[in-house]
């Protein structure tokens, strides 16, 4: 029953002084109101005649707004008067166009559309959790409501990472084109891979003249080179405990995802093949890049639901997975944290096997708080101890970096906002040096 039933009963209490037997009046009035409630309940539209379906956006970039529309179809012969609550997880930021409490009227056989605008606050999968329909009677004294009737139509909105480092892409692509030799503002392309033979023109490097071919053609021919294409690139995202650390406003994993996306976009344009692996104690996501056009979209979709887990990353697993899947020599970019405990015990033992087959780059975001502790002038005893602890952490980091460098690993250690361009630069440099 609704508040109207209570109000009706309370209002009818005003007639009691006129009754000859007031307590009999109480019984009669209560019975009458309950009878009305029962009647109203019977006349309410049945719930099994209602079906709910959804349509709308499946994915939205973080910060954007998606619209998902809930369609309520009333198949019963009665008019449906309903209050509808379509509950999403709070971080989905759902704002229904029709307020939750408003009574909706759907005629027999009719359909109502209830659009919901979603502005998610976090990356990942944001599901619709529960749909509740309260079917009111014509007098609105009583309602029918049952959990699971109608069944909640499942819908998951995938919130994609924001990909802020997109703004670096044009600049990096321009540099890639210079390396490629497509853009001739600065000169020919560099590279180590043989491209074609062409006639010598004045200004060509005499060292690139192919004498054998010149002898055959009675013309001076030069070899042209181009950067390697169809190289392989593996982005490995560490989703273990170190990736849960919040740097500034977002976890380290989000920074890593951002950098990995920029790298993927760049490599895909350069004609390289990109694979992605996300793992902690188990493999969380895996993308094998074959179809180039949709690679970035697929990758974004795959990394969107990744969440950091409070477990120690199993580098043994990661190394095994990479070695098993990548037979050719590839560039393995490992997005993790430069932390002595995690890397020293996990990565260093398996690094020789990995570095023997592949070129390894370790991309780590460092903590701005740590830098702040070491650079700020101390004001109290706590600061002095904190500075000592921070210096010690930095020294440990340097030791790990030195150990990694001994194995031929390139370490990219950058603040959160500069990690993505720094990794892209490293990639471009390696590519221009032909070290892929």
């Amino acid at each position, binding site marked *: 029953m609704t508040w109207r*039933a*209570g109000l009706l009963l309370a209002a009818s209490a005003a007639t009691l*002084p006129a009754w000859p037997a007031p*307590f009999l009046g109480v019984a009669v009035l209560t019975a009458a109101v309950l009878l009305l409630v029962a009647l109203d309940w019977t006349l309410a539209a049945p719930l099994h005649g209602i079906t709910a379906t959804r349509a709308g956006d499946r994915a939205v970039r973080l910060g954007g707004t998606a619209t998902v529309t809930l369609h309520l179809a009333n198949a019963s012969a009665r008019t449906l008067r309903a209050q509808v609550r379509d509950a999403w997880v709070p971080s989905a930021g759902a704002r229904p166009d029709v307020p939750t409490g408003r009574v909706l009227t759907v005629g027999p056989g009719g359909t109502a559309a209830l659009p919901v605008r979603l502005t998610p606050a976090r990356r990942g999968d944001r599901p619709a959790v529960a749909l509740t329909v*309260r079917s009111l009677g014509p007098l609105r004294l009583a309602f029918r409501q049952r959990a699971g009737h109608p069944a909640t139509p499942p819908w998951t909105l995938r919130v994609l990472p924001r990909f802020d480092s997109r703004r670096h892409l044009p600049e990096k692509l321009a540099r890639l084109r210079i390396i490629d030799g497509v853009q001739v503002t600065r000169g020919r392309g560099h590279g180590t891979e043989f491209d074609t033979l062409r006639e010598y023109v004045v200004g060509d490097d005499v060292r690139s003249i192919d004498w054998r071919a010149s002898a055959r053609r009675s013309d001076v021919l030069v070899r042209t080179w181009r950067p390697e294409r169809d190289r392989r690139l593996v982005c490995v995202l560490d989703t273990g405990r170190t990736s849960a650390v919040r740097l500034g406003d977002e976890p380290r994993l989000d920074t890593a995802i951002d950098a990995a996306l920029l790298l993927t976009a760049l490599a895909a344009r350069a004609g390289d093949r990109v694979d992605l692996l996300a793992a902690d104690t188990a493999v969380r996501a895996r993308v094998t890049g074959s179809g180039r056009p949709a690679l970035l979209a697929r990758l974004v979709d795959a990394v969107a639901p990744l969440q950091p887990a*409070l477990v120690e990353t199993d580098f043994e697993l990661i190394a095994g997975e990479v070695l098993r899947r990548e037979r050719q020599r590839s560039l393995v970019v490992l997005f993790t944290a430069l932390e002595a405990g995690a890397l020293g015990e996990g990565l260093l033992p398996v690094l020789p096997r990995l570095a023997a087959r592949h070129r390894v780059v370790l991309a780590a975001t460092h903590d701005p708080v740590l830098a702040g*502790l070491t650079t700020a002038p101390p004001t109290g005893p706590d600061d002095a101890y904190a500075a*000592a*602890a921070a210096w010690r952490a930095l020294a440990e980091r340097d030791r790990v970096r030195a150990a990694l460098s001994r194995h031929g690993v390139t370490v990219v*250690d950058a603040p959160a906002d500069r990690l993505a361009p720094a990794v892209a630069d490293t990639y471009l440099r390696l590519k221009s040096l032909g070290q892929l």
Partner: protein
Amino acid sequence: MTATLDPVRPAAPPAPRRRWHRMLVPPGLAVLLIVTTLVLHAVDQPDPTDRGFLSPVATGDDGGSRLAEALREQGVPIRRETDVREALRAAGPGPVTLFVPAPELVHPHTLAALTVLPGGSRLVLVEPSRRVLTGLALPLEPTDRRWATRAVPPDADGPSCRLPEALRAGTAAVDHQRYAGPSPADRCYAGALHRISWGAEVVVIGASDPFRNDRIDEWGNRSLATGLLGANRPLVWLDLPGPEPAPTGPSLSPTPDGDGTPLPRRSGERADDRADPPPNWHNPLWDAFPPWFWAVLAQLAVAGLLLVLWRARRLGPPVPEPLPVTVQSAETVLGRARLYRRAGARDTAAATLRAAALDRLLPRLNLPADTPPDEVAARVAAHAGADPERVAELLHGAAPEDDRELLELARELDALTRTLAPHPTEGDPR
């Protein structure tokens, strides 16, 4: 090919049945525990209305055969009577002890006759209820009632006990039902035993334990029971088999003999009141308002109940948010700093700070890492324009004694490195 493995998902929302279980099982367990306790207690407690309860011929746990035996050994003649009238008649002219183990079974109309005993007689009542006390017009009130009987010394709450039998018996299991009476009454065992001179001498005891076969040997129970019931008087043991029927004849009280003092009564009205036990109590508040007022109140209460029912049904369950794990940045570093501070590790902290400063100064001054300390100090002092001895003390001195010195050291090292070597630009890809 794309394969995405879902991250750890929170468990699916529990089925409605599980929710019912969750709502029902803990209260159910509590109710079961309470019911079990109550049933066990009820089984354990003797019931005065049972046949054979404190009967001189019953040998069960509830019986009083061992007490009767003990009394006979002391030479106390026992007369077992199963009827109040017979008992009163049997009392005869001389002083007797009338033992009533189950005063509840005595009919209200015959209760008053119990106190009309020959002079020097004693009436012993076991756990009389308020009704019995009122019926006897005794100035006693039942107060606290314990869950189980406790053994207490006679002077548990002050030296007011003047009953020689109780003092002789010492600690006894008496404290079950306590009574409050006027001050002249002898009060023993924290109020569980009262002696009042009310015509005859009336002894009210708050527990049946001292008389029962199963507990008579504990503490001073036997001594107390035989003391209360013995004392050179013949004992009339009122062993009622069940609730007594109403008296038929008008002449109830036995003809009191010459020395039988009649019972002092408080007032005549009280005797009349006793005639109808449940008094028809009427609240004057009813008449203060017209009946429709109460009806309106009742109807408003029902309306409120309807509103409560309306609010009790929510529009769908609350939705939980699967929260991501978060780790504060530099958590371990700050934790280590706090550990340093708590342990007072000033030497370690100072050594770390000095090593860090040297690490930054040496490359700046183009010195190899194995430069002797005094040369380092001299070069640093020359560059910074400071006193070499001070710099040497700063870079290679003793560990600081307290936190203030450590802070001083940290400040000076910071100032020195700031002038000579600007802070390293962090994060250059190497």
